[in-house]
Each structure stands twice: as C-alpha cells, then as structure tokens.
C-alpha cells in the first residue's frame, strides 16, 4: 500500500458482483465471501441468477448477480443495497444499478461498453453514465478485458478461455479495495481447479493483476476499507448455503438415529442442490435415487421408510403438488418421511429461480381428507441444518411425515457456519416395537401419552403386518369403514401431531414494552431482525417473534401474539401465516405487510411500513 493511502474502518459493507450469466459472478462472489469469512467477518450472501439457461450474451435478461454483505458485527441479511457494484457489462450496469446505494463505488469493464453492448442494454447514447445519472467520480472505469488479455498473453490460452478469467480481475480489484489477503483466494482456486493446474494458475495471475491495478491507480477512489471483526465467537467455521446445510442436517440425523438415509428426488430449481450434495456422499452410505418424476421421488422415499430407512424427498412448490398424494399416504400409514419444500415463486412454474413464501397453506392443507402434518420453516442458511435435523427427529420419533420449508433465498444464500458437534445434538429414538409385544401387537397400537404407533420394520419375525391407504381399525389394523372408528382415527392422527413438543416462541427486542411486535416465519428472519434493529436504533420500542415451528404452533403462541398493542405479520405472500394464526388464536387481529416480488424483503421498506403502523 502506498503511504498516502488512507485506510478507513467500516462496520459493514455490501458488494454486488454482476455480469452476464456466463461471466462467473457467482464464483467471484463466493471467493470474496470466503476470503472475508476467513478473517472472521460476519457474512451473508445472496445469489440472484436469471431463470434462462443462457440468455443471449450481453442481454438484459441474462444478467446474473451475487451480493455479499460483510460486517464487523453480526449481519442478518445480504443487505438491501450495495456499497460497491461490479458491472461486467452494459446490461449489468443497466439492471443492477438500482441495487446500488447513492454514493456507491461502481466498477465497470469499459471494454464491454461498446456500441453493440450499449444497444443490447437499451442505452440510447454513448453517455451511459449520464443516462443513468451516475457521477463519473464514483466509477472505477477499467478496461478489464484488455488487461486480462495482456496479462495472459504468454499463457497460450485462446481468447475465449482468457475471457473466462475476467471475473477474477474484478475480484482482485475488490480484494484490493477491502484490503483482503489474497492467499485464501489462491488456495480456493487451487482446490477448485485441482485437476486443471493451468486454469488455477491463470486465474491467480489475473486476481493479482486486478489487485495491482487497484493498488497502482487508486486515484479514482479515495480509500481502502477495512472491516475488523468484533465480538468474535471462537470456533471453527465454514461457509455454507442453506441447501448444503439442509443436506448436512439429514446426514447428521440419519447418523444419530443409526439409519440409512434415502433420498428420492427429481431435479427442480431451487432444490436440486440438495440432491447434488447428498449424491456426493456415498462414502457415508447415503442412497440417492433420481426418480422418473416427483411422485416417485416421494413414493419411493416412503417405501424406503417402510423398509426401515430415513426416507426424504426434496422439491419445490410444483413438486409438492405432485407429492401430496404420497405425503397423504404417509399420514394415514403413520410412517416417518421428511418432505423438503424449497419455495420458489408461483403459481405453476412461476418464478423458478426467485424466492417466495407462498407455499405455506399448501403445506398445511394441500391434501385431501383431514391430513395433519407437522410443518417446520428454517430461518436462515445455517438454520437449515438444525431444521433438517429437527424435522428428521420429529418424523422418526412421531411416526409422521414432516414438511421442512425453506426458500430460494436461504437455500442459495450462505453464511458462516460454526461446525456442529453431533454429540451436542439430542438423540433420535424411533419407537421400534418392543420384542415383548410379539403376538399382542397390531399396527395401530399406540403409546398412550404421545399417541404414536410403534414401528415394526420388515425383517422382524412375528411382526408381519399390512399398512395402506385405506382407513384401518384402531385395534386390529384391518380395513374398516366403521363411522366411529374413522372419526376416532381422524382425531388420533390430529392429536398425535398436536402433541409433538416444539420450543416456545422467543420474543426478541423490547419484549416487555414494545409498541409493535413484528411477526414472520422462515427465511425472512434476517430482514425482519435488521428492520427491528434499525427501528430500535432510532428509539422505537419494537419486538419480534419469528415462527420456525408452524404446525404444531408453540404453546405460548396466543400469549405472545395477544400481549402487544400492535402486531404486524410480514410475509412474502398474501397473508398465509396471518390466516393460519387468526385461525389458531382467538381475537388476533394483526396488521399485515405482504410482498410477493420474488426478491428478498428490503429492510428500508420494512422499516417505513412498520413506522407507518406505529403512527396509526
């Protein structure tokens, strides 16, 4: 660093990498977040990629983004808007500038702002900065493509291969801007391209070139920034996405329960990464079957459960539609099954790569008959691990299918994950039928307290039995159409689910004297928390209660919801949680904040809306 350069301390910063979907923005963003997490910064990331497989190069629909929020203190969201925007082409600048804060630094590759690029991005003139109203002083305009070509001139690579390294130049520049240690990035690349040493070497060379470019020509920006870590929680960490954490949670639960993990699945955005992740881990005995359809994914997982495994199926909303029939079979057969719904925008194919919370009522009610199923909604990328573990434990110990809801936002987003120690997690004890019941046992014999039936896994002599989709007699397990028996079985199935213990609802913030209680569920935890923090910082009395366990609801739900003068239920749908809570809590009349844009909440918008409610 040159002497006159000022190093400025920041509490937090948001960087958004954007470019064509082939420009490697996800990789650049991932490396930057890893580099930052390694020094102990809190991180939260959000990939925002287009639904098109590969939109025409340079087009507005083909822009892919990756936002990283790093902070000295805990960060809860990937940030509303960015402090630094990297725009690798004209289309990226056009579509992504709206995510930049006023005064944000903008890094652009001037080689991708030629007349054709500008035309594809629907600019009217050469003065693209003027058209966007961007102050040129804030722009680090750099001929990245040319510099990458120069840098790799001796590498023997063709131009196309060279251009794939442009992202690394931008990454190097950002690393310089935030005073990051490049060694971590180098190691990341060496590992990623372990079998392609040439590629790793080229990328490393280009990162260095980007870093040096920043170092040598920093005149366009005044500072180098540094984010020091405060309040460190000591421990060993890794970066993890919600989908990977979910997969890990299933693995951990199966190991704890001493059962084989079976995943029956079908590729669907944004859940497919769970199938990918679990498919890798055959050395742990994980069995994954990519089935012929969603129906078979769920049906085969149920077959696996019947045969004594932890049966899991993973999907998104459209898959839930197809799986509902086999989920219902699991309800009446009272077998364990975990159904993962990584929510995306709907209805129908909807917005496959975007995030919503619009499946809640489908998960609660979307089956024929009285079909109670526990529903758990993970609250953050790292919470997906615990949620998957809890869902598996619940399914196995209570002999019921369980729906685990996540969403595209937390599934693809990542944050630093303190490595869990499985010994610290509660035991999982499925209710295997005791040997002494041989001869006296029938399939629907239940534990009197929990109403859970016993599990007889095929292979055990003397417990041969049949299960099925037809109503069964509570005593004998034989098919029964007896009216009283059906009524009884319906009540028993409900009672069993209602009796599942879940943790109490926790109130955060000004829990004793809040003027407003913010209520949400699942993946919006970070944004709602950030909104609460912002409001409290400005002197408002605000609390929040966030639902992870949705069916059954925590026991103190009514008490919490009825305690505060004003309650707002904020969710990314038209009011599904609010409907459920109104159904379950007499006299509950909340305000509602509903947004269905396929994008994460914007903290500033939440704060504005909540402050309006306070004024009412």
């Amino acid at each position, binding site marked *: 660093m040159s002497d006159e350069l000022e190093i400025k301390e920041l509490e937090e910063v948001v960087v958004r990498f954007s470019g064509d979907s082939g420009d490697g923005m996800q990789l650049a963003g991932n490396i930057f977040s890893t580099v930052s997490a390694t020094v102990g910064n809190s991180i939260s990331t959000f990939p925002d990629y287009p639904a098109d497989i590969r939109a025409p190069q340079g087009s507005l629909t083909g822009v892919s983004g990756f936002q990283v929020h790093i902070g000295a203190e805990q960060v809860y969201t990937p940030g509303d808007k960015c402090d630094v925007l990297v725009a690798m082409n004209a289309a990226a600048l056009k579509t992504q500038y709206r995510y930049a804060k006023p005064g944000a630094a903008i890094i652009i590759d001037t080689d991708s702002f030629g007349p054709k690029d500008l035309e594809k991005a629907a600019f009217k003139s050469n003065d693209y900065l003027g058209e966007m109203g961007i102050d040129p002083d804030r722009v680090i305009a750099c001929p990245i493509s040319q510099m990458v070509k120069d840098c790799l001139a001796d590498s023997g690579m063709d131009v196309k291969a060279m251009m794939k390294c442009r992202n690394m130049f931008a990454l190097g520049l950002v690393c310089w801007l935030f005073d990051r240690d490049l060694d971590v990035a180098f190691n990341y690349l060496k590992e990623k391209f372990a079998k392609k040493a040439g590629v790793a070497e080229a990328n490393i060379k280009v990162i260095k070139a980007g870093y040096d470019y920043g170092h040598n020509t920093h005149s366009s920006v005044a500072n180098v920034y540094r984010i020091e870590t405060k309040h460190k929680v000591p421990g060993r960490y*890794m970066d993890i996405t919600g989908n990977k954490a979910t997969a890990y949670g299933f693995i951990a639960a199966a190991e704890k329960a001493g059962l084989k993990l079976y995943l029956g699945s079908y590729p669907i955005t944004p859940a497919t990464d769970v199938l990918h992740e679990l498919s890798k881990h055959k050395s742990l005995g994980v069995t994954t079957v990519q089935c012929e359809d969603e129906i*078979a994914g769920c*049906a085969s997982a149920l077959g696996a459960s019947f045969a004594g495994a932890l049966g899991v199926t993973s999907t998104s909303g459209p898959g839930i539609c197809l799986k509902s029939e086999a989920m219902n079979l699991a309800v009446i057969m009272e077998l364990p099954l975990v159904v993962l719904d990584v929510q995306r925008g709907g209805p129908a194919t909807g917005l496959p790569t975007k995030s919503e919370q619009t499946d809640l009522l489908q998960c609660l009610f979307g089956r024929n008959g009285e079909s109670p199923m526990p529903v758990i909604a993970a609250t953050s990328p790292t919470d997906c691990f615990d949620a998957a573990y809890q869902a598996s434990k619940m399914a196995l110990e209570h002999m019921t299918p369980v729906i685990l809801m996540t969403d595209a936002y937390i599934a693809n987003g990542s944050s630093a994950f303190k490595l869990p*120690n499985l010994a610290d997690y509660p035991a999982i004890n499925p209710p295997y039928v005791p040997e002494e019941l041989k001869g006296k046992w029938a399939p629907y014999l239940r534990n009197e307290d929990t109403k859970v039936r016993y599990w007889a896994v095929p*292979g055990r002599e003397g417990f041969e039995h049949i299960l*099925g989709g037809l109503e069964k007699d509570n005593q004998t397990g034989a098919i029964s159409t007896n009216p009283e028996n059906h009524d009884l079985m319906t009540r028993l199935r409900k009672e069993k689910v209602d009796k599942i213990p879940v943790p109490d609802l926790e109130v955060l913030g000004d829990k004793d004297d809040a003027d407003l209680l913010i209520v949400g569920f699942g993946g919006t935890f970070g944004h709602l928390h950030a909104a609460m923090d912002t409001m409290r910082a400005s002197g408002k009395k605000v609390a929040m209660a966030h639902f992870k366990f949705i069916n059954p609801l925590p026991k103190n739900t009514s008490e919490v919801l009825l305690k505060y003068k004003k309650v707002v239920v904020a969710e990314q749908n038209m009011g599904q949680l609010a409907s459920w809570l109104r159904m379950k809590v007499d006299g509950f009349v909340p305000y509602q904040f509903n947004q269905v844009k396929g994008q994460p909440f914007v903290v500033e918008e939440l704060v504005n809306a909540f402050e309006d409610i306070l004024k009412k």
Partner: protein
Amino acid sequence: MNYTAQDFKKGQPRWCPGCGDHFFLASLHKAMAEIGVDPWNTAVISGIGCSSRLPHYMATYGMNTIHGRAAAIATGAKVANPNLTVWQVSGDGDGLAIGGNHFIHANRRNINLNMILLNNRIYGLTKGQYSPTSPRGFVSKSSPYGTVEDPFRPAELCFGARGHFFARAVATDAPATVEVLKAAYQHKGASVCEILQNCVIFNNGTHDSVYTKEGRAKNAIYVEHGKPLIFGENNEFGLIQEGFGLKIVEIGKNGITEKDILVHDAHCEDNTLQLKLALMGNGDGFPIALGVIRDVEAPTYDESVTSQIEEVKASKKYHNFAELLETNDIWEVK
C-alpha cells in the same frame, strides 16, 4: 425353512366368487412356500384396484398403497433394504395407466422386484370402465359406443422399457403360474409376470380361449428355454422362423421334422424373437405364449447402488458426519 402355502395365508379374500384373483392368490401362496423366503423377509406391495387388495391376504409384510404408485414405493423399499424380497402387485389399470411411468422405469432401472400384472382388461373396482389393455372397440360403461384407442400389449411395454424378464400365465392354470412366479423370484432384476385373469362381473370371458385346460391345449403354447416351440392338442404344430416373422408348421408334413422347429431361447439378449412370441395370439391364428418368454441376466439397480456405495467407501477417506465436515474449507476464529 420349510414352508407350506398355509404359512403365507391370511384372512378371507373378499373378491367376487370366480374372480381370477382367487386363483392367483392360491398360486402365490404356494409359490412363496416353495421359494422358502421367510414371511418376515418378504414384502408384498400393491396399488389400488380389486387385485391390489391382495397384500391383505398375505401373512408377510405388506402395503396396499395408492393408485398407480406401487412400483415406485416398491423401488424405495427394495433399494433401501435389499435384503427384502419384494413382490409388487398391480392390475392393468393400476400398473399400466396411472402407474405406467413407474412400470417402465422400474423395468429400465432393473430393480430386483417381482412385478405381477393381473390383466383382466377392465377397471373392476370402479365398476366397469375400459382399461389400457382393453381391445379397440371395447364396449364398457365409459365407452358405450366402443373405444377408439388401441391397447397396450404389456410385453411390448416391458421390452420397450428394456425389461429383462417377461413371463405369462393364466390365473386358472395353477402349476404353470407357480412355475412362472418361481422363475420371477429366481431372476435377479425386474421380473414382469402377466397373469391373464377373468373378471366375472365386468369383463366375463375376456381370456376364454385359454382359460380352460382344453382351451390352452388348442390356443396356447407353453414355452420353455431350450425346448422346441411345439404346441397343439397332440403336439402336432411347431413354430419356425420365416423372413422377418414366425410361421406355424405341421410336424410330419412337407418334410418338417421336430429338428426344424425353432428352439426357445429365453436367455437371448436380443429380444426380437421373444417379442414375436409374446405378441402372438388374439385372433392372428397364432397360439398365446405362456411361460417364461424372456429371462436375461443384467446388473440390477439395487445391487449396483450397494456396490457403488462400497466402492466409494473404499476410495474416500470420510465415512461419518464429523469427517465430512472436515472436507470443507474451514477457518478458525480465536
């Protein structure tokens, strides 16, 4: 263990008197006793339909699931627990209409399932609609003017899905049914057994030509691997290959001797002639083929899954969750 049919029986079947399901159930009990797999290591999994009630009458583990999904559910059970012997039972509607996708993929993957297709060419439980195996022009409650669609021929579907085992028996023909079921069990992989059976109420007489011993003597040919394809009341006819097809010849006429007759090869990888055998009958002048028509060894899915897991276990250094965590990029905050 030595078992008798009695050891596999349970309950009182509730099918209509004379229904083909009764005959098949008795043969299945007998076959299972002869096979000798313990009832507690056996699972019988069905979908929905008259014939899908069958697991209720088995003293084994079982599931009477939902319409069409038996093959998918059986797939999960077998792959998760390869020690189980899994029998999957479906009717023609359950297996080939709503469950058609699972039927073809179970065959393609070659899951080690014994897949029973009870074909009475009608929906019985819903009281008489045409099924995907009902012939064109079939009059039923849902086709009062006759169907205007061609049926599936199950063998064609099985072969098209790269099935490695296909056998056929008539429900009333107990000895041959038992033999076919035992062969299906012996075959490692998806084993499709088409059982021709009568629905006395909604499609009476659909398999009349072969439903009696006398009828089979005239209208059926029992095929056996390694034996010449001879049939007729006095074994007077045989099949030979001519051009792209098969031809019926009379032994002793035109210089034809038994040596000229085509010898059945169920183990032949190429399924061309096996398919021709399977498609014979139903008014083309050829007899209906009964017995094991195709029986070819191939890697099974469930065994391949298990062996792949063992291979990866041997080649990877992490075998539990704690070791899995260590494969990530980890940093330490002190």
